[in-house]
């Protein structure tokens, strides 16, 4: 139901949106692009692992787009920039992954954080290469070989982001139901038995980690080329925390939670910033508290629960890790 009806309906509505409310395009482009790393976080959460460092791949994607664009001259070609960001973030995911998949839970989270902060420092300190805290300017690339006006370019990126997000959601949904996806869930509930089935938990985690890094890299490249700049902040830990926040907000049990969470997060941030001024972070914090206390399965998870109850089913969505922590305390 969720993936066979609601997901295509959302994609269709989003595809029609520029014809009706073109003023939302920029907002939604960011929503789509930032949902990509959140999908990666949701995939890792299947095995109960939280990364507080995925912003590093987000930054790697954005900076790769910037450097490759500069190297190609003019700004390069968007498709090539995205492919380059994908390739480099896969390599980076493989490199970091080899270390982090040896650890679990808080150690996994913190080691990811450490790697990302190393990258943040490098981006800040190597001013002559990265532009330091001023960031790296990303010139407007061509799109499918076409030079574009700013309006057409944004229109194009909107659809590129939407298409990539739809592809990623579908792919992640299939992945979660594949043997690898089920092995991830099995790692969460009983890693010893996974070994005794002849499955390598580390290799399984590494494969999914690389996928999650690739998603974050492509998301970062999209945000970078859309905003025309990559800054070290892209790799900062608050950005990593934001991805985890969004995953919990949207519901980590369903891939679609990434989109619901990303939309809600950006919506709250934009409206709170407009109407409540500097207190938008407070508003987001209260939202997170509310979700953990009253809807631990997140937005999509709670909707699924309501749907199940309505149809008389007993199954309930799993609460997010923070929701589980709360249940453990109770």
């Amino acid at each position, binding site marked *: 139901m969720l993936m066979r009806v609601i997901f295509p309906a959302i994609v269709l509505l989003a595809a029609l949106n520029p014809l009706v409310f073109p003023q939302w395009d920029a907002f939604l482009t960011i929503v789509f692009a930032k949902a990509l790393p959140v999908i990666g976080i949701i995939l890792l959460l299947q095995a109960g692992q939280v990364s507080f460092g995925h912003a590093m791949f987000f930054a790697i994607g954005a900076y790769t787009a910037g450097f490759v664009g500069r190297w190609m001259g003019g700004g390069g070609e968007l498709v090539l920039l995205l492919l380059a960001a994908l390739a480099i973030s896969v390599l980076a995911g493989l490199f970091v992954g080899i270390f982090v998949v040896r650890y679990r839970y808080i150690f996994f989270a913190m080691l990811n954080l450490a790697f990302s902060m190393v990258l943040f420092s490098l981006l800040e300190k190597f001013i002559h290469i990265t532009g330091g805290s001023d960031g790296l300017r990303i010139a407007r690339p061509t799109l499918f070989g076409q030079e574009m006006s700013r309006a057409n370019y944004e229109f194009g990126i909107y659809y590129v982001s939407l298409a990539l997000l739809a592809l990623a959601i579908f792919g992640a949904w*299939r*992945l979660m*139901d*594949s*043997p*690898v*996806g*089920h*092995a991830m*869930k*099995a790692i*969460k*509930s*009983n890693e*010893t*038995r996974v*070994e*005794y*089935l*002849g*499955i*390598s938990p580390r290799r*399984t985690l590494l*494969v999914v980690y690389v*996928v999650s890094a690739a998603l974050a890299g492509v998301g970062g490249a999209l945000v970078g080329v859309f905003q025309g700049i990559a800054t070290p902040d892209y790799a900062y830990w608050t950005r990593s925390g934001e991805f985890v926040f969004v995953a919990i907000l949207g519901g980590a049990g369903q891939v679609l939670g990434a989109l619901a969470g990303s939309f809600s997060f950006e919506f709250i941030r934009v409206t709170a910033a407009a109407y409540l001024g500097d207190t938008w972070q407070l508003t987001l914090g209260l939202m997170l508290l509310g979700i953990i206390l009253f809807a631990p399965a997140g937005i999509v998870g709670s909707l699924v629960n309501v749907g199940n109850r309505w149809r008389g089913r007993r199954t309930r969505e*799993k609460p997010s890790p923070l929701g589980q922590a709360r249940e453990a305390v109770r």
Partner: protein
Amino acid sequence: MNALLSARDIEIRFGGVVAADGVALDVFEGDNLAIIGPNGAGKTTFLNICTGYLKPQAGRVTFKGRELLGSSPRAITRLGIARAFQIPQLFAEQTVLENMLLASASRAGRLGMFTRLADISQRGDAEAILEQVGCSDVKDRVASELPEGKRKLVDIALALALKPAVLLMDEPTSGVASSEKFAIMDTLIGALRAQKVTSVFVEHDMEMVSRYANRVAVWSAGRIQKEGPPDEVLTDPEVIRTVIGS
């Protein structure tokens, strides 16, 4: 006749407790070998050693002539030694069938990202094994919801789904209602014979041992006190004193 699984001179201590002090034990093809002995004698430790979970301070364990010590549980599983647990070790959040399919997918080397787990071609095998152990009725239930007896059987079924050459079981029917024990063991032993699986099981229930084992090894004070056919071993006065009579 060459032993399939062979342990020699196994020594292992936990602090001051000696679990094994020069244990030698052979498992031959087609065996249903029961290991009996007082509580805490080291029977489960032996299974942990054979599957690579623990490393003894001394000794050798070979499988088809190949040294096992130093290999991981995963590598040993891949060689064809599967294990079932005394306390069922299931994937609590997944259904019984998903538990089984994961084992089958692993056995078949089909751990991909693109096919659905439910669509793998080994599904028929997995369902047949569930049928054999009498768990077809719960295959769509989430593992954590099962009663203890069923969990135990699914745990064994998971090991069987790996199509092992040797199956090591730790008290296969503890936790199963006593009225069902024999029926379950009948089907289990039948399934093992049908699949030509050699088995080793740790057991406390002497009736089970005399009924289903073709050989018995008595593990006591870190040694194999006696070994042989059940009618001979279980009537031995010393065995009765150390194990059965107590």
